[in-house]
């Protein structure tokens, strides 16, 4: 599968393709725009997804992520733009061409699973194969193989209406994998499951995608799901991609406060730049006297925020030495199993969130006087609406 990438657009990682030559195809969107009446769902989207890559579209509801996905499968018709799958155009607004949904060979797992309740599990999985016109025996073999892949081989004859949520999820996945789609779309497939099952299926999903070597677009508003599953994450807001990066990079270097906030950074404080006597970079928390030194230069721009992950806030019961130390009082202490979470009141309505490994014997109690210290290298200062560095969009 030749993967054409344009240097101008963030290219997918080269290593994403599977080793065993899967059937995943690349996807390319150019100038994709979708409006519903006067509402703009997707503004002008350029996106490349490599063959065999798992791309997660992450964003709050209404950011256009589901619309983008439905444009790829053809359930929505874009207002403008062009979509290619495996190098072949499936939609082009300029030439009024649009491949019908049922001929795009794009699989989709719906948020509601959309398992047909009047059929058995096997009949559900067989449906796309019947539509392809495969022979009876071939279909039976393929259904069995696919059900095995998702661990549902024992349920083939069961009526689909008598399945649990997790089982329906697996059947939905099997059904869309069975058709060997060029691209697999997953629309918040885990959101209707309970937390434990969600965690387990997340692993299974990633494993399956890697084994089958399928190209996948995964839509979610859950940041931990996005980070766990993706080769790359595209964070979306108001119909635009705010940042497109591999999970680790995204986690370490959110490009602005929106991304940081969405990725679950609890400590986001409005700040203004200060220059220290010795010229070291620093910020003062707006409405609070606290000055924090920062590792790097403070960027220019308005709406600056200091952005500190809770696990980077160290808590002491006696005053420690070093930079960026402040005294406070524990307001809330909550035990989360693997870690302790604290809300520490620094006075003047400033509350800092801290996370410490729970094995620490020194568990703090509420109302206790404490000190916090933040490594200057861990203080990120972000502008409100900055685009990621090096982004050429």
């Amino acid at each position, binding site marked *: 599968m030749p993967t054409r990438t344009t240097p101008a657009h963030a290219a997918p990682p080269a290593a994403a393709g599977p080793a065993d030559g899967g059937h995943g195809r690349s996807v390319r969107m150019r100038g994709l725009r979708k409006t519903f009446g006067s509402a703009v769902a997707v503004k002008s989207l350029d996106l490349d997804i490599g063959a065999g890559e798992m791309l997660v579209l992450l964003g709050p509801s209404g950011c256009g992520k589901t619309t983008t996905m439905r444009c790829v499968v053809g359930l929505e018709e874009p207002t403008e733009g062009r979509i290619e799958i495996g190098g072949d155009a499936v939609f082009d607004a300029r030439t009024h061409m*649009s491949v019908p949904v049922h001929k795009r060979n794009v699989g*989709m797992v719906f948020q509601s699973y959309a398992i047909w309740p009047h059929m058995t599990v096997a009949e559900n999985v067989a449906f796309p194969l019947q539509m392809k016109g495969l022979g009876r025996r071939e279909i039976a073999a393929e259904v069995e193989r696919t059900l095995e892949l998702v661990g549902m081989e024992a349920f083939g004859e069961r009526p689909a209406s008598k399945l649990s949520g997790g089982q329906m999820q697996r059947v939905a996945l099997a059904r869309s994998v069975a058709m060997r789609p060029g691209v697999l779309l997953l629309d918040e497939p885990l959101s209707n499951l309970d937390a434990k099952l969600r965690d387990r299926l997340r692993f299974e999903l990633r494993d399956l995608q890697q084994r089958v070597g399928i190209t996948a677009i995964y839509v979610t508003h859950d940041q931990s799901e996005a980070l766990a599953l993706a080769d790359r994450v595209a964070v979306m807001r108001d119909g635009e991609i705010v940042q497109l990066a591999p999970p680790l990079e995204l986690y370490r270097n959110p490009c602005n406060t929106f991304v940081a906030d969405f990725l679950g950074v609890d400590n986001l404080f409005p700040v203004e730049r200060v220059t220290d006597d010795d010229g070291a970079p620093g910020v003062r928390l707006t409405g609070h006297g606290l000055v924090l030194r920062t590792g790097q230069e403070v960027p220019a721009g308005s709406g600056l925020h200091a952005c500190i992950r809770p696990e980077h806030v160290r808590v002491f019961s006696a005053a420690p030495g070093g930079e960026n130390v402040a005294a406070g009082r524990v307001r809330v202490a909550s035990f989360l199993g693997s870690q302790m979470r604290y809300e520490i009141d620094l006075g003047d309505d400033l509350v800092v969130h801290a996370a410490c490994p729970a094995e620490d014997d020194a568990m703090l109690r509420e109302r206790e006087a404490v000190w916090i210290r933040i490594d200057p290298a861990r203080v990120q200062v972000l502008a409100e609406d900055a685009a990621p560095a090096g982004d050429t969009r």
Partner: protein
Amino acid sequence: MSAPTLPPEPPLVQPEPEQGRRPDRGGGTTRLVRWLPVTVLVVLLSFLVVLPVGMLVYASFSDVAPRPGAEPSFTLDNYRGLLTPGVGSALLNSVLVSLGGTVAALVMGGGLAWLVTRTNVPCKRLLQVAGIAPLFISSMIGALAWALLSSPRTGYLNQALVALGIPFTFNVYSLTGMILVFGLYYAPYAFMFVQSALSLMNPELEEAGEAHGATKVRVARRVSFPLIKPAVMGAAILVFVLIFENFPIPTILGARERVDTIPSQIYRLIVSAPPDANRAASLGMILMAIMVTLVYIQRRVLAAREYTTVSGKGFKPRVNDIGRWKWVGLGAGLAYLFLAVVLPAFALLQSSLRSHQYIGSFADLFVLSDLSPDAFTSMLTYGPFQLGLRNTLILGVLTAVIGGLLHFVLAYTVLRTRSPGRGLLEYLAMAPVGIPALVIGMGFLWGWTTLDLLPIYGTLVILALAYIARFMPQGFRGVASSITQVHPDLEDSAIVSGANRIRAVWRITLPLIRVGVVSTMLLLFILSMRELSTSIFLFSAETRILSVVIFEQWESGRWPRAAAISIIYSSLLMVLTVISRKWFKTEG
């Protein structure tokens, strides 16, 4: 289906169906493909809805009856002719009867619904049946039976009063009589609507009221009643409209004392010699104007209902212990069943079994030697009956099959496509709610005889089309509500799996809504079998139907025969409904 026998007639009180995501099916479709189905449907519905109404408007401003070759000129005389004391009193009577009938129906039906749904009244299943059973008895047969029971001197009930020495006569040939009969036979509608409103209410809303310190009585007053008030109001207006346009009851019960209503006057203007079609048309316009206004108000009332059914899910409603009052409730429910079903059935049976209708005293009713099954046995050779039975069944099937298909295509287009003009389609499909049945009959008569497009006048086809038009709101709503219960993703996922749209509908959507569609078709079948008001202007010698045959027997005073056919006809309706209900139970 919550109602065990007939699915509730849902045209107005159901909330707008939830508008699911409409998949964009623009992919590859040309403009022709997009417009063609809608255009065909709009043309079809225009013949069903716009044509009869248009003919009515036309006739009401014209000086000659619409017929081929007529040369009409414009006139307002038909409307001027309405300014007579006769029309005034008919209008007043219509309003009085409808108001009284609505109140009576709500008290009986609504009260019974509350007892069955929200109290610990004994024999709930029986009372549930009692709430709906009178639907088997069409309003015409109810009126006939009560005429037998309560005509001033010879009525069986009045005879019984004499026998008991009670110096009181209940004359059913009066406004009060009509109100009672209307109340009895429209109570099932109130029952179904109130029951669905009560069972859709989340009991947690009431429990929250109690948890926050309100007594049961205050919860009822501050929480429960305000929540179901819009539904009850909506049901009240609907029942009012149904009574307002009803023609058999005032015709049968008003004839003797000349108590006219607007519908009975329209009927007389058409069948009098010479007929006055143009004045009938202008009177029909008045009737329709009032109905449209009421339906509009009802829609506004129901728009406020959205908060009532916080969720469409069925809850197990809270049951209140009403103590010893539950026996009073049971008594009231049984009394209703007695008045609406048992007594009328007894009266019809009595009448059908005696060749001489006159009885000297109440005791004569039980002289077995006076009774003979001649009226029934004569049916075996009575041509009009057999023809009527055959036609009725054929029409029921035609209406159900053609209607079911049409309503599915309509509802699917309106709900699941982004076709242009689907708003117009829905509007046209629901329009017959505001069109009196008599008007549909007159409009079809004039339209198809004047335009001479197809030679369907005088055939069963014109009757079937008129029925489809008349029952379109019920049919459309029935199919639409089952379509909305199927998540659009289910069909979308079939298309994503490689099926084209027609295959996806055939393999996924249709099987999933099969039960809903078939039960809507059964509803259409049963509604068609009960039809009289539209047919009365459209039947011919060859296309008589059972209800018309009964009506004719009554007009010519042949009581035993009218009663015998009524019994056969109602039993047939009941058997069909019970069978279909059984069938649905096994179907799940």
